[in-house]
C-alpha cells in the first residue's frame, strides 16, 4: 500500500510542482498515472523512489516511511523500471536480470546458482528466455524493456514502479507489456506506471491517478473516472474525447 499524505514539492519557492497531494494506492492493484507533460509525473515517481528529498508531507510504502529507508531497504520494497531503458554495456541478458538480486545479497556476495534460477524464472515470466544468452546491446528496444521488467521482478518486491514503460515501443510491444503488467497484478503485485496514453489504463481496466492542469490529483477506477464529463479536458485539453463502444470505451482525438 502506498500512501501520499499532504505531499508538496517545490524546486523554487514561487512555483510549486504540486501541493498537498493525498492519495492511497491499495495493494494488489494497477495504477496508471496520467498527466500532461510537465504536470509532475516524474517528480512524483522521484519522491516515491527516494531520489528527491525536498518534499513536505509523508510518503509511506507498506507502512514504512520512504524517506527513512536506506537504499537496500527501499530496494526490497519497490523495484523501479527507468524511462529510457538504454544500455551501453554489453552485459548478457541473464546476468543483467540477475543484477536484480542485489538487494538480497550481502556486501561481497555475488548471485548464486539459486539466484540465477530465480532470474531465469523472471525471464520466463516476461517471455524472454530465448534471448537470455544475448548481449543487452544486441536486442531490440522492446526486448530491452522486458529485460528491465524481468530485472525488477528478480528484486522480489511487492511493488513495481515503471516510468513510461511503453513510450518507446510499437503497438504490438505495448500490448505485450500491458499483458505482463496485468498478469503481474493477478499474481499479487502492485504496479504503478506512468503513461501518455489513457487507453493503456482502459485496456487493462486499471485505476488511474489523474493529474489535471490545476495540479489537482484524483485516484479512481479508470473506466469510471475517464468517462466523467470534463475530466479528460481538465488533463489534456478540449481536443480529447471519450468514445463509447460495444466492448467498453476508448479515448480518441476530437480535432473537428
Amino acid at each position: 500500500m502506498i500512501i501520499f499524505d499532504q505531499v508538496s514539492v517545490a524546486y523554487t519557492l514561487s512555483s510549486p510542482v504540486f501541493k498537498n497531494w493525498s492519495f492511497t494506492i491499495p495493494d494488489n492493484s494497477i495504477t496508471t498515472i496520467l498527466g500532461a507533460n510537465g504536470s509532475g509525473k516524474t517528480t512524483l515517481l522521484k519522491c516515491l523512489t527516494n531520489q528527491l528529498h525536498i518534499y513536505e508531507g509523508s510518503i509511506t510504502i507498506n507502512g514504512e516511511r520512504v524517506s527513512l529507508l536506506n537504499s537496500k531497504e527501499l530496494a526490497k520494497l519497490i523495484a523501479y523500471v527507468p524511462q529510457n531503458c538504454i544500455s551501453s554495456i554489453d552485459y548478457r541478458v541473464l546476468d543483467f536480470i540477475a543484477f536484480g538480486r542485489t538487494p538480497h545479497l550481502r556486501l561481497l556476495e555475488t548471485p548464486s546458482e539459486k539466484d540465477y534460477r530465480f532470474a531465469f524464472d523472471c525471464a520466463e515470466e516476461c517471455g524472454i528466455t530465448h534471448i537470455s544468452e544475448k548481449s543487452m546491446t544486441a536486442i531490440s528496444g522492446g526486448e530491452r524493456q522486458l529485460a528491465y521488467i524481468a530485472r525488477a521482478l528478480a528484486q522480489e518486491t511487492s511493488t513495481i514502479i515503471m516510468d513510461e514503460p511503453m513510450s518507446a515501443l510499437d503497438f504490438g510491444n505495448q500490448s505485450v507489456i500491458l499483458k505482463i503488467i496485468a498478469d503481474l497484478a493477478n499474481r499479487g503485485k502492485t504496479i504503478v506506471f506512468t503513461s501518455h496514453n489513457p487507453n493503456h489504463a482502459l485496456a487493462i481496466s486499471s485505476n488511474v491517478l489523474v493529474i489535471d492542469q490545476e495540479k489537482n490529483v484524483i485516484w479512481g477506477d479508470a473506466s469510471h473516472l475517464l468517462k466523467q464529463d470534463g475530466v479528460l479536458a481538465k488533463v489534456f485539453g478540449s481536443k480529447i474525447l471519450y468514445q463509447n463502444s460495444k466492448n467498453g470505451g476508448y479515448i480518441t482525438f476530437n480535432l473537428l
Partner: protein
Amino acid sequence: MINRQKKISLLTLFTFLFALLVIGFGCCTIGRYQVPVRNVVLSLSNYIMGSKFDIAGKEYSSVILIRLPRTLMAILVGSSLSLAGSVYQSVFNNKLVSPDLLGVTGGSCVGAALAILFGASGMIVMMSSFVFGLIAVCIALFLPVLMRNGSNLSLVLAGIIVSAVFNSCLGLIKYTVDSLEKLEAITFWIMGSLASVTMRDVALAFPFFMISTVVLLLLRFRINIISLGKTEANLLGVRFQTTRIIVIACATVLTACSTAICGTVSWIGLIVPHIARLIVDSDNRNLIPMSAMLGAVILPIIDTLCRTLTISEIPISIVSAALGAVIFYVILLQKGRLLNDNI
C-alpha cells in the same frame, strides 16, 4: 537451459600462470648481457632456495639484482594499471577512460618533479610522487562536492581541471629548474622506466598493490551495479556514492603506486581492458581479473623490449604508447563496425 554467469575457466587460469612463469623466466634470461639459460636457472635457485651453485658474480647480479626485480615489478605494475583501467572504464561507463582520468598521473609527476627540484632522489621522489598523486585525486573528488553535483560528468570535468592545473605546475617546475641535470632527471622520470627498481622497492610496494587488488576483486560484482549509474544503482540497493569512492580510491592507489615507482606508463590502462573484452565479456566479474592477468604478462614483455632493443634503454612509455596505439587500431579494425557514440 539456465546458464550461470560464464566464469573464467581453470584452464584459462593455469594457462595464465604458465605464461606468466615462461615470460617471467624469459625476461630474466633475455638481455644485452648474455647469460646462459643454465646459469639463469642456477642463479634463481641460489636466490630463492638458497642453494650454493657456483655462478660468475656478474651473471648472478645481472639476473638477480637487475632483471628479477624489474620483471617482478613489471608484473605488478602491468596488472595494477590494467586493473585500474578496467575499473575506471566501468565506473565511468566509458571505454575511452584511462586510470589518469582524475589527475593522478599529473599529480604524481608534479610530486616527483618537486622532489627532484629540491635535490632529492630515490625513495623521497617515490614518496612525494605517490602522495601528490593521491592529493590530485582527492581534489578532483572534492570539487564536485562544492558544485553540489554528484554526477559522473562533474567528476570527469573536475579531473580535467585538476590535470590541467597540475600539468601547468609541472611546466612551471621544469621552466624554473636550476640545472640541466635536474631537468633531464625530471624528463626521464616522466617518460618512465623500471631501470632502478630493486627488490626492496618490490617488497615495499607489494602490500599496496595487493590490498587494493583484493578489495577491487571482492567488489567486482558491485562494480557492475555501479556502472548502471547513480539512480539504478541506488534503487538496486547499492550505496552508489560510498561504493564509488571506495572503488576509485583503490584504483587510484594502484595507479599512484605504479607511477611513483616507474613514472608514467601510458596506454596500458586503456588498452589492456579492451584486449580483455575480446576474450571475456564486459561483466566485471570476468573483466577485472582478466585485465589484471593480461597486464601482468604484457608489461614485462614491453619492459624487456625497452632494455634490449637498443644499446641504451628506451623509456617505457615510448614503447607502450607506440605498441598500444597500434594494437588499439587493430582492435578497432575488428570491432570498429560495432562502434557507436555510446562507446
